[in-house]
């Protein structure tokens, strides 16, 4: 059984009297340990699919099963708990909180957990170590470079030990050298068994993924195993 099973997923947006079908009948299975790259032109429905996968965006029809849970049969609050348990989000715009330092930003998902203060700090420290930023724990986000901020965002996504990392164009704001560092970090995590689903339209990034899913007008246009890189 797949870790993620997407069945006939449909999403419509209504704006200005018009209805846009952003996702139009997507079915997809993703196994534990896969590194899936979702590609497609702008507006093809990649971000919509990803937020639905993360339990943030209710579909018009169809279903998503994660670890045997039909996540849209859950209540809104239960779905929040599901995200806390299963999902780590990484955004293109980093989305760090400017008024918290690096360590505190990594600890945001832990602020609602019952761990002790010491454990929380240790956990966040070890993840900063993992992304190579333990020496900048007390800096504010605006004192870091873009690549460093993205690595903080990745550490934050990992801090709850979620089985799934969802990343939406994580290198979209980075130059190619920095992109490579971030992609190598994702690869390392994936090699350690982390399931990663990443939206990208950077051809360079495809080489790191184990599977490519190409969307076109909200449908799966192609899905195939990548040639081992």
């Amino acid at each position: 059984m797949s870790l993620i099973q997407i069945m006939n997923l449909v999403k419509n947006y209504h704006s200005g009297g018009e209805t846009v079908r952003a996702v139009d009948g997507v079915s997809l299975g993703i196994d534990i340990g896969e590194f899936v790259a979702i590609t497609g032109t702008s507006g093809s429905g990649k971000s919509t699919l990803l937020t639905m996968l993360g339990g943030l965006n209710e579909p018009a029809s169809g279903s998503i099963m994660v670890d045997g849970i039909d996540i849209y049969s859950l209540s809104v609050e239960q779905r929040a708990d599901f995200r806390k348990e299963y999902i780590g989000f990484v955004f293109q715009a980093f989305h760090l909180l400017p008024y918290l330092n690096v360590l505190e930003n990594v600890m945001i998902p832990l602020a609602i957990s019952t761990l002790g203060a010491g454990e929380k700090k240790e956990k966040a420290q070890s993840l900063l170590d993992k992304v190579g930023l333990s020496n900048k724990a007390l800096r504010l986000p605006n004192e870091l470079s873009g690549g460093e901020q993205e690595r903080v965002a990745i550490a934050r996504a990992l801090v709850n030990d979620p089985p799934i990392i969802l990343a939406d164009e994580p290198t979209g704001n980075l130059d190619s050298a920095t992109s490579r560092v971030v992609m190598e970090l994702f690869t390392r995590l994936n090699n350690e068994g982390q399931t990663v689903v990443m939206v990208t339209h950077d051809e360079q990034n495809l080489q790191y993924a184990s599977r490519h899913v190409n969307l076109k007008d909200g449908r799966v246009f192609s899905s195939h195993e990548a040639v081992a890189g």
Partner: protein
Amino acid sequence: MKLYHISLNSLLRRKARMFFLLAGLLIAVSTVVLLMSIGQTMNEDIANKLDEYGANILIVPRSDELSLSYGGMSVSGVSFDVNPLQQSDVAKIRQIKNKDNIKIVSPKLLNVADVQQKKVMVVGVHFDEEITLKKWWTIIGEVPREEDEVLIGVDVKRKLQLGLGQVILINDQPFKVSGILNESGSQDDQLVFIDLERAQKLFNKGSEISLIEVAALCYDCPIEEIVAQTSDKLPGARVTAIQQTIKSKMKSIHQFEQFSLGISVVILFVAILIVFTTMSASVNERKKEIGIFRAMGYRQSHIMRIILQEAFLLSTLAGLAGYFLGLLVSGYAGSLIGADKVNVHVDFTIMALSLAISIVIGLGASLYPAIKAARLDPTVSLQSL
């Protein structure tokens, strides 16, 4: 790290906006405290002055007879006692419902007697009560302590040419002048005061008394109430309230309190608006941040907690600071309105009240923005992807 770390840090980050909210609440709370303190000071002022006004209730026997006059009030039963008051009636006054408001009960026996061959009104009193009732009395010599000592008004002294220590005859009985009352401008100047029990013996009156003067310390309860209660206890007596200047003063205090209440309501309403708009704007500004929290697995209730915690922190601060600012300002304002003694002291009831007002407004007006924040669609908020 806990949720309140996030609240606290976010407050420190948005200092300018939050300062606006804080200032709004603070000014509102301090104004209300100021008005309350002035009202309280005025009331305490009145309470302090009240006992300087002497008796405010007069009890005399019910009678159809025309009568002698005492203190500008008609006093019946001096010459023809239809149904005289008794010593035992004094205790009954102490048993009315509002007995705690009764401060002084001073029974009197009035008689016209021959003093050194002249007709003089002799009043039997309990000196200790009479002295507390008539705070304005100044006495040369001593207040009578023995049964055969007397206190005389200054007119009596002049007309009969008496001096301290002199022995005089009242209805042929010898008494010593132990004290002379300084000019008071009242009828007291023309009276001779002796001990009540001695007077009853002297005039063969048994345990009769002519009238009872009562000082009721009641600046916020209606004096009519006490009059009615006393009338019930003493059906054979006529109980009347003496009109005093204090009444008009009290009326102005009540008017001030009404005015304060009106102003306070308006100010608190403005404070609610300020908190509401500031919090709504703050939530709008933080849509993205809220989206991030939701993506990280925060429940809607967590979002509400973050917002309401911020409101709580600010309003607690504003409540405390507003209380002390109000107290400080009322020190100056009190002297402006002419309160004798401006009473700037920490009153924990008012402090608790101002804290409560601030927190209720702070949380209440933030509730809707907090609910709105919790219900934000995270995908829309995060749409800078």
